[in-house]
């Protein structure tokens, strides 16, 4: 029992310390809705048509920014989870005779972090949960021991 209690104290303290080091300090940007970027090859007949497409997309709910570059013929839309690349494509297709095509970027060949960003972002939350869980277990063990002592006292 003593070993278990000691382990719980150590796990709780280590997890809390890890969380304190890794957690992101509170920031004004915490309130912002997440945004994704989808790029399309617009196939616009001329720069004006591409610009008109961008202006139309700018008005849609859940779209925070649109950029059309006549040189690259790319139309980039910053959007919330209200949209997926497929729904954006189908909506854009209704506005133009030639449907835009989703631009697939080829990832750069350089070295990349082997751990996905999603996992890295989850670590602070996991450490905090672990610390709280081990503290609760420790408290439970102490209450259990006290109850056991009281029962043996009355017997």
């Amino acid at each position: 029992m003593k070993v278990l209690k000691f382990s719980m104290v150590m796990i709780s303290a280590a997890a809390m310390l890890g969380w304190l080091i890794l957690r992101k300090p509170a920031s004004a940007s915490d309130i912002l809705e997440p945004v994704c970027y989808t790029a399309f090859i617009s196939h616009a007949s001329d720069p004006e048509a591409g610009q008109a497409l961008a202006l139309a997309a700018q008005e849609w709910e859940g779209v925070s920014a649109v950029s059309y570059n006549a040189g690259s013929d790319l139309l980039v839309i910053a959007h919330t989870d209200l949209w997926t690349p497929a729904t954006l494509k189908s909506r854009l297709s209704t506005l133009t005779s030639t449907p835009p095509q989703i631009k697939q970027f080829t990832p750069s060949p350089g070295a990349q972090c082997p751990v996905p960003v999603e996992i890295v972002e989850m670590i602070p939350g996991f450490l905090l949960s672990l610390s709280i869980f081990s503290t609760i277990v420790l408290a439970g063990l102490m209450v259990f021991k006290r109850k056991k002592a009281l029962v043996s006292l009355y017997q």
Partner: protein
Amino acid sequence: MSSYFKTLLFAALVGVCTIIACKKDDDTPAVEASLYDRLGGITAISAVVDQFIANVVADNTINGRFAATVANPSRARLLRLNLIDQVCAGAGGPCSYKGMTMKEAHTGMNITQAEFNALVGDLVAALDQFNVPEKEKNELLAILGPMQTDIVGQ
């Protein structure tokens, strides 16, 4: 002295004090709001950053550098938040940037001066699209300008 006169005297005293207090306020030179406030706070900064990233992704000169990031929504989200926090903190706002230093983030990338200039051009285009006044635009560029040495040629 009747209570009527006492009340009148008290009201006059309060009136004189209010006038003196207002006069003092008028004399105090107005403190200029922070760049963060003048830009319009976090919502305005995030709108400019969204436009900036969209401009960069549409720009064939430099979008190859951001391909891997944009292809992964989680990485794109992280880049956006880091940029917002960096601009917000630099402008004196209540944000904390916890990303890598510019030198750490760009080491080994061999970014050229032309690529950096294209990036600045995309930022200026985003600021212009939101009609950010010249003064605020220059202040923001002056904050970001010194980062050039940590980004180019690393």
